[in-house]
């Protein structure tokens, strides 16, 4: 019998339907793998008992022929999604023992369609980081690195690593400035950040409300399509969720892309772009072209300001969103002489360095006298970035770019430790998309000379995940990327 953990969701679903194996067997295989591969530090809470109970229930539904879309499929859940009665920490000390009495809408959808929960996945603290090193539980190790020395990326580092290592069938992620796409690229897996508003944010701990968006990280494009269909949908509990029909994304896979216009942004050939990444970028464009797509050059002139705008807007929103973590109603409290002391003690000891840095920057850019110069200016630049994309999409259907300028970098990189901006520069290809709220997928395109995976990003028009899935499915086929064994 094949190793069940190597199956994609689509394959596993077939096996379950055909009674080749049971949901309990499938979950047990993943639980065994999860327990064996703890060295990756992908999970911060394991819930095998929950998964097995759900799997047994799934099996009985299969027997009754009433199985849901994802019945018995074992998922890992990023620790930013609140899961009822399962500890949820955002990988922050301040929430070390927080047990939500409620479920996020996205995970509720997944649960309702029968998916099981293997546990909660590691991430950068409150999703602030690009390497998973800001997690209170320590960094995730990239499964592709031979000596456990490389980062898995972030913030959804645990999600990407777990999928790559075969210790969950797929995972949920969230993306604020690249947190699904960049770790997917580093770990050789596929992840999509849908259009802003596709997935409800209800029950997902907020980092930057105007940017946060949930999405799947999976073994391939099809699995992303299957998961996204279940995760997405209008939610009256989230006023920013979009009231638009959710298509069956799977049906777009394998479509003819002849005549599709693929935009290549001239400004994305930045100085820090790795030569091998650049070569793969050209190769990917060629692959699409050989299928009859038309490659056109587009211009995104304000992209170079996207990072600066992002690092004003996201911290500003975060400084406010994280004000509720004060040690009063939940979370870790460190007492003080009076209320302000308690706040200061709890927050100073509960938050890590990067979170504190961003809260303070956010507080500063919103404070009296600086609002116009920083926050308002950044929002105006955000408008220009959105307009750039609108103009580019007048000329093309999807935009192709690398996901990140390099492959995964070492844990504890000295330059990045000393200068936070160096770390932030890894988000250069992903943040502009987030600011514009567009759908974008990262999929593995190949390995570099060091044997590390590289990712390509496909960006679509607002709410046009369809084109992204079409192009991605074609590219995936031609790239023929071999998943980790």
């Amino acid at each position: 019998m094949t190793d069940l953990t190597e199956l994609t969701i689509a394959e596993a679903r077939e096996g379950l339907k055909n009674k080749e194996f049971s949901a309990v067997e499938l979950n047990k295989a993943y639980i065994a793998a999860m327990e064996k591969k703890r060295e990756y530090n992908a999970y911060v809470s394991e819930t095998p008992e929950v998964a097995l109970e759900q799997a047994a229930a799934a099996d009985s539904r299969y027997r009754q022929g009433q199985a849901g879309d994802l019945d018995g499929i074992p998922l890992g859940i990023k620790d930013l999604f609140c899961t009822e009665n399962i500890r949820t920490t955002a990988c922050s000390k301040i929430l070390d023992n927080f047990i939500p009495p409620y479920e996020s809408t996205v995970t509720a959808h997944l649960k309702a369609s029968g998916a099981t929960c293997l546990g909660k996945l590691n991430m950068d603290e409150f999703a602030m980081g690009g390497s998973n090193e800001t997690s209170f539980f320590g960094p995730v190790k990239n499964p592709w690195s031979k000596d456990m020395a490389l980062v898995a990326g972030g913030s959804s580092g645990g999600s990407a690593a777990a999928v790559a290592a075969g210790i969950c069938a797929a995972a949920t992620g969230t993306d604020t400035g690249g947190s699904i796409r960049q770790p997917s690229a580093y770990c050789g897996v596929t992840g999509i950040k849908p259009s802003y508003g596709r997935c409800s944010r209800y029950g997902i701990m907020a980092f930057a409300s105007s940017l946060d968006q949930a999405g799947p990280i999976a073994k391939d494009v099809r699995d992303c399509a299957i998961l996204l269909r279940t995760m997405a949908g209008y939610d009256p509990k989230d006023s920013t969720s979009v009231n638009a029909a959710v298509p069956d994304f799977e049906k777009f896979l394998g479509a003819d892309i002849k005549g599709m216009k693929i935009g290549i942004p001239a400004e994305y050939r930045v100085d820090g772009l790795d030569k091998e990444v650049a070569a793969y970028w050209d190769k990917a464009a060629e692959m699409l072209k050989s299928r009859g797509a038309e490659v056109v050059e587009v211009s995104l002139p304000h992209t170079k300001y996207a990072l600066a705008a992002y690092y004003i807007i996201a911290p500003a929103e975060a400084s406010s969103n994280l004000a509720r973590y004060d040690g009063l109603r939940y979370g870790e409290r460190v007492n003080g002489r009076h209320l302000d002391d308690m706040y200061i003690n709890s927050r100073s000891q509960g938050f890590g360095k990067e979170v504190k840095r961003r809260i303070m920057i956010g507080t500063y850019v919103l404070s009296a006298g600086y609002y116009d110069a920083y926050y308002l200016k950044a929002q105006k630049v955000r408008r220009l970035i959105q307009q750039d994309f609108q103009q580019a999409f007048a000329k093309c259907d999807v935009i192709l770019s690398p996901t990140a300028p390099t492959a995964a970098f070492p844990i504890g990189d000295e330059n990045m430790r000393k200068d936070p901006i160096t770390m932030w520069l890894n988000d250069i290809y992903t943040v502009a998309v987030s600011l514009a709220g567009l759908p974008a997928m990262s999929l593995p395109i190949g390995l570099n000379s060091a044997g590390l995976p590289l990712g390509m990003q496909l960006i679509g028009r607002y709410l046009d995940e369809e084109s992204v899935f079409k192009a991605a499915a074609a590219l995936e086929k031609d790239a023929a990327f071999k998943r980790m064994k």
Partner: protein
Amino acid sequence: MSGMIIETANNKWEVICGLEIHCQIISKSKMFSGASTEFGADANEHVSFVDAGMPGMLPTLNKMCVRQAVKTGMGLNAAINKYSEFSRKNYFYADLPQGYQITQFKYPIVGEGKVTIDLVDGSSKDIGIERMHIEQDAGKSIHDMAPDKSFIDLNRAGVGLMEIVTKPDFRAPEEAGEFLRKLRSIVRYLGTCDGNMDEGSMRCDVNVSVRKVGEDGYRTRCEMKNVNSVKFVVQAIENEAKRHVEVYESGGQIAQETRQFDPVSGQTKVMRKKEFAHDYRYFPEPDLPPLILDDAFIEEVKKEMVELPDAKKTRFVNELGLTKYDASVLCENKEIADFFEAASQGRDAKKVANWMMGDFFAMLNEKKIGIEESPVSAENLGKLVDLISQNVISGKIAKDVFVLMVESGENPEKIVEEKGLKQVTDSGAIEAIVEKVIAANPANVEAYRGGKTGLMGWFVGQVMKESQGKANPGVVNSLLKEKLG
């Protein structure tokens, strides 16, 4: 009425005052959650995860709060803004669970308006409304349950508030008092707020400054927060203005500060200065898109508008012939106005008004009850006036009937019938009494005939006494005139 002038040896100072009034919106559920707004529940019972600021929770706006705000805006003769936005006001406090208050900042739902107040000298004055916005209320901190602890109850957290900001148009403390009474009357008419200052459902912040008569511009103002009765508002303005004058006259300067009004002493004192000033860091609430009202919504609210006190008063004066004073008394409270309209339906409204202003209000005052508890119904009061108009009883007998109505709650016709109080209009019967009186008092008859015509009243009184008050005074008068020659 001219404003309050404080005269000193060398100067004349005028008072400048503006008000900010928080009105709790009448709605079943909270502004951003489905928890009840009902008062008096056990601690933290009317609290949702949203109200408690739990991680990942999102606000959803209550339609009723918007309707009530639009209605109130219309009642303030104010512009309704079809586009408004929510913002976050950031500060830490024990009873503010999110660490920010959702309010409106740059784009409030209601713009400029005006309210006309009537002053004691019979003149009226327009008070400008600067704006009105909607926001959520905070919870409650209880400090006196234990010496070293504070207790937090979030039942009130998230209840909708309307904040009405006036222009600095008040020139005398009594004007502010009159405005508050008027505002209370308007919101009660509209049913948008119950207007109880003592219960905190209407709370007032007072801004006061002074300037020399003839001086342009404004001097530094001081704010007094949460002054909780009309009387205290009047007192606070008066004493704060005097304090400003004293400071200026002794060569000092007024510092812009928030002061606390002490109801016991009637004085204001400065609140403890914080280490750092507040900096609320307002920014657009990213969890809520802009609020856009369409014409249909506004029209719907317009249809629900009731006749407001000013319009009613004008109608009472112009159409029913009431004096301005009577009309304004009868219109201050919607229940009283409704009672009056019911009682005066199809009758001489002036006579009904006289009865209400006289014996009826005296009775309510004496019993210390509201009009809704009155033992005399509007219908019965109207019937009483009918009995007088139809000469069934005299005005004097009517007063006795009214007392019996109060005691029994019966209708006046029944009382008059049962007690045999019907007026005697039969001139034959009255003539006999008149003749009897004339015969019994020859000396006064002579005096009358000798020119002491003032005795007529005495004769009328004698006849009435003899008839036990039942004789029709008109008939008595004319018969006496005839007989006395």
